Every structure is written in structure tokens, then in C-alpha cells.
């Protein structure tokens, strides 16, 4: 296999738990650089747990997580960031009393090219009008959509190999959902660093399908469907939510 063919992330029969409660069972998937893998399913399906497990915020019960060809052991969010795994959790988790620009800067905390980082922040702000609007505004007073753009931008500025994004459309107006998903597609295809592999947890089926290359449907913590985007329509996926 060539370097490009090696998946950035590979989950092998992964089971995850919080304490004694097993929430995700036997999940396997592969994501390559430049690809978006959408994980969908009803509430309580284990989607967020799957992302938490990758960064060590849920316990691994069985299976393996392989990142860039190596098993990911003894991981926690800080070590994950160091390995260039960017996590955009549900609720965004921005720094509330820091400006949009400072939140973006924080994404590059682990980068050594400080001068380049400032330029990348300028470029990001120039490219995304929403970010320009809130560059000087504290996160606590931003709208949900503005926060989401900054949160994804923060992840992107770490120049990630892998980006995990949880429910980015939650609570956003449709116009901002479009903006946010354009940004997600941009992160995956970013030519400046060969693109990131993206695992996207999303309940908005149409929005997710607009950017996804692969789809996985979880229900009750287990995979009920997995395949390429074209395998299923939004209506098929909706049916799976109901059954």
C-alpha cells in the first residue's frame, strides 16, 4: 500500500464503555486523508461515545484504534492533540472569555511554526466572513453558528491529520449549517497539508450526506449499516432511525 492508501484512522472491532456500562460494541471503520466519514444514528446510539473513545474520554473495552499505522495507546485529549487529532466536541467547548482570534490561535498551540500560525489565522479570517465578524468578540457572546465556525477553525489551525466533529449543525439556522459544512469539506480537502481525515457525527442526514464519502449508521451502540455515500438515500437512513 502506498502512503496515501494507509488509513489515517482505523477502528478494529472497537467496544467502548463509561465505567461498567458498555455503550459502543464492535465498531470497525477506516478513514483516509481527505475523506469524510459520517457517523449517524438516533439519540443514544453511541455516536459521541465513539468520538470520545478515540481521544481517550471513554474507556476501551475491546478492539484496537490504529492511527497513522500505529496502535493508539494510553491516549487522552492532550496527547491526542499532540498527535494532531483535533476534536470539536458537541457544545464546541470554546474558551468563553477569549476572542474569536485567540480561540483560533489556541488551535495551533502545539505548532512550532509560530509566524506561520499567525498568517494561517489571518488567512482563515479572510476566507470565512463569519470568523472575521467575531475575530475580536469573546466566545461567550457569539451565536451558536459563529461558535461552530470558530471551533472548526480552531481544529483546522492545528493542521490536523484527523478531525473529529460532533453534531456541528445542532441548533444552527439552515444558512449557517451550509457555511459550517462548506468549512468541513474545506478542512478535509485542505491542499496545504494533504487534507485531514474527518469523522463527522451528525443527525442532520442531508447535511452529512452533502460532505460524506462514507457513512456508518449506529443504533444501540452497534453498526447497522456501513458503506459509501451513494449506497443509501436520506430516506433510507431516516427509515433506519425509526426501526
Amino acid at each position, binding site marked *: 500500500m502506498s502512503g496515501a492508501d494507509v488509513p489515517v484512522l482505523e477502528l478494529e472491532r472497537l467496544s467502548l464503555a463509561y465505567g461498567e456500562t458498555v455503550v459502543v460494541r464492535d465498531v470497525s471503520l477506516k478513514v483516509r486523508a481527505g475523506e469524510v466519514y459520517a457517523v449517524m444514528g438516533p439519540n443514544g446510539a453511541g455516536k459521541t461515545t465513539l468520538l470520545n473513545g478515540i481521544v481517550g474520554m471513554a474507556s476501551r473495552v475491546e478492539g484496537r484504534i490504529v492511527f497513522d499505522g500505529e496502535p493508539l495507546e494510553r491516549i487522552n485529549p*492532550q496527547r491526542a492533540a499532540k498527535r494532531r487529532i483535533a476534536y470539536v*466536541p458537541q457544545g464546541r467547548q470554546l474558551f468563553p472569555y477569549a476572542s474569536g482570534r485567540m480561540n483560533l*490561535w*489556541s488551535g495551533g*498551540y502545539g505548532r512550532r511554526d509560530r509566524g506561520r500560525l499567525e498568517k494561517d489565522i489571518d488567512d482563515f479570517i479572510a476566507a470565512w466572513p463569519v470568523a472575521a465578524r467575531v475575530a475580536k468578540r469573546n466566545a461567550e457572546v457569539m451565536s451558536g453558528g459563529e461558535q461552530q465556525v470558530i471551533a472548526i477553525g480552531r481544529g483546522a489551525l492545528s493542521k490536523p491529520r484527523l478531525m473529529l466533529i460532533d453534531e456541528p449543525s445542532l441548533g444552527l439556522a439552515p444558512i449557517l449549517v451550509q457555511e459550517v459544512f462548506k468549512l468541513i469539506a474545506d478542512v478535509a480537502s485542505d491542499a496545504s497539508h494533504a487534507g485531514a481525515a474527518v469523522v463527522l457525527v451528525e443527525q442532520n442526514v442531508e447535511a452529512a450526506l452533502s460532505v460524506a464519502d462514507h457513512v456508518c449508521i449506529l443504533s444501540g451502540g452497534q453498526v447497522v449499516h456501513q458503506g459509501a455515500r451513494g449506497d443509501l438515500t436520506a430516506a433510507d437512513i431516516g427509515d433506519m432511525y425509526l426501526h
Partner: protein
Amino acid sequence: MHYLIQLMIEGIEQGSIYALWALAYALVYQVLGLMNFAFGDALLLSAYLMIALVTTSGLSPWLALAIAIAAAAVVSMLIERQVYARFIGRGQGEAGFIAALACAYILRNIATVMRGNEPQTFPTLFNSSLVSVAGYQLSSGGLIVLGLCVATMVAFALFLRSTKVGRGIVLAGQDRVAAAIVGIPVRKVITIVYGVSGALGLIGAAMFGDLYHGLNSTTGFYITFQAFIAATVGGAGSLLGAVVGGLALGLIESLAVGYVSGNFAQALAWTAMAMIALIRPRGLLGHRVVERV
């Protein structure tokens, strides 16, 4: 009016020391949400070390001060690593509080074993004299103390604003989970915060010792409570608030000494601060709580 302004100048001089203590104290609170009740006694122990270095080893006061600053940083970091770290994230608030008080007594006991219970004469850092400025009688030592405290605070503000570590401290203080997610080494930052807090506090303690020419074994508790009150009234989540709280405490104390009595100054100042806290429960510059939608 002349008398009032004279008192206010003296209050600001005194308040700049409280501001430094409050800033150091609030820094720990901001990052950990923990009231460090061993704060003042860690400074007392280090200040006693400074006195010992000057009186028994004949070191210059300024070199002894530099060693004491380093000692205060190390003692504070050791307390964090060996004591407080065991309580963080375990929901053991009361146990942590008791441990902090126990630490305070242990440090004070070590200091008294070192130097005894008698008040200690503090080495002179500045030769103070009275100077007349625009008709006001000012102590040159007090003005130097004010200048040094302000310079320390400005340098510290620049450190927080412009350096990677400083920014990491500010961000970890806002949200530790978010800090971990972006790769800020939160554990390391917490230890650094304790060290910086100890160093800043010691500078304040040395200025205090120089201004009053002495310290005693209860000075540690006095520092802790002055810092605690100033930081809380200023807004426990705000470093700028802590500075404002410290200056307010100094001003109120000075006015109480001038217009009421030196015997009641501290009681009146603390009562006034309690009233401010009652009117503004989040402090003078505390963060507002905003629900995210």
C-alpha cells in the same frame, strides 16, 4: 481635601502590595477554582529564609530576595504537587480546604522553628526618606514600593498576553477541558501557576516587610486573608479585578486609619469589603454568567 488626598496616596501604596498578593492568589483560583489557604505561609517561610540569609550568612538583601523568590516558587509548586494535586477533580472540596489549612500551619511551624516566635526585623531594601511633592509629604520607600509593584504587575500582564505559556495559563483558567483538547499541558500549567503565584506573592511580601521593617509568625495568615478578600471582592475569576480589589482594600484601610482609628482599620476595611461583596456578589470585575445557546 489635602488630608484626604494624602491618605489616598498612602492607600494606593499599601493597596499596590495587596494588589500583588491578590493577583497571585486569584491566579491559582482562576485556574483551579481552589482557595489556596497556604498561600501566605509559603511566603512567610520564604521571607524568613531571606531574613536568615541576610542576618546569618551576610548575603546582600537583593541577592537574598532573589533566592527567596525562587524558594517561594518552589515551595508553592511542591505544595501543589504533593498536596493539592491529590484533591483536584475528586470532588473533595472540604478535604482540600482542610489540607490547605494544615499546610499553612506546617509551613508556619517550620518558619517559627527556623527563626522563633519573636517579630523579625526585615532587611532594608530601600533607604526611605520623606519627600515633598506638590505639597504632599510622601515616603520615597513607599513610592519605590508602588513603582515596583506596578512594574511587576505590568510585566506579568505582558507575560500572560504575549508568551505561549502565559496564554496557556489564561486559557486553562477559562476551561481546562478545552485546554486539554487543544493540547495545552494542563498539569504542567497548574504547577507553573503555583510557582508564578509564589514568586509574585513573595515580591509583595518583601515590599510589605520593607515598608513596615518587619514580619512575624502571623503575617502568613494576614497575607492569605488580605489576598483572599481583595481577590474575592475584585472578582475571583478576574485578574484585573484582583488588582482593583487590592487597591480598594488599601484605600479603605488608609481612610479608616485617617478618619476613624488605626485600631479599627482592618475591621472596618473588611466590613466595607463584605458590603461590596453583598452588593456585587460576582465581585467588582467578575465574569458574568452567560447561558450559551
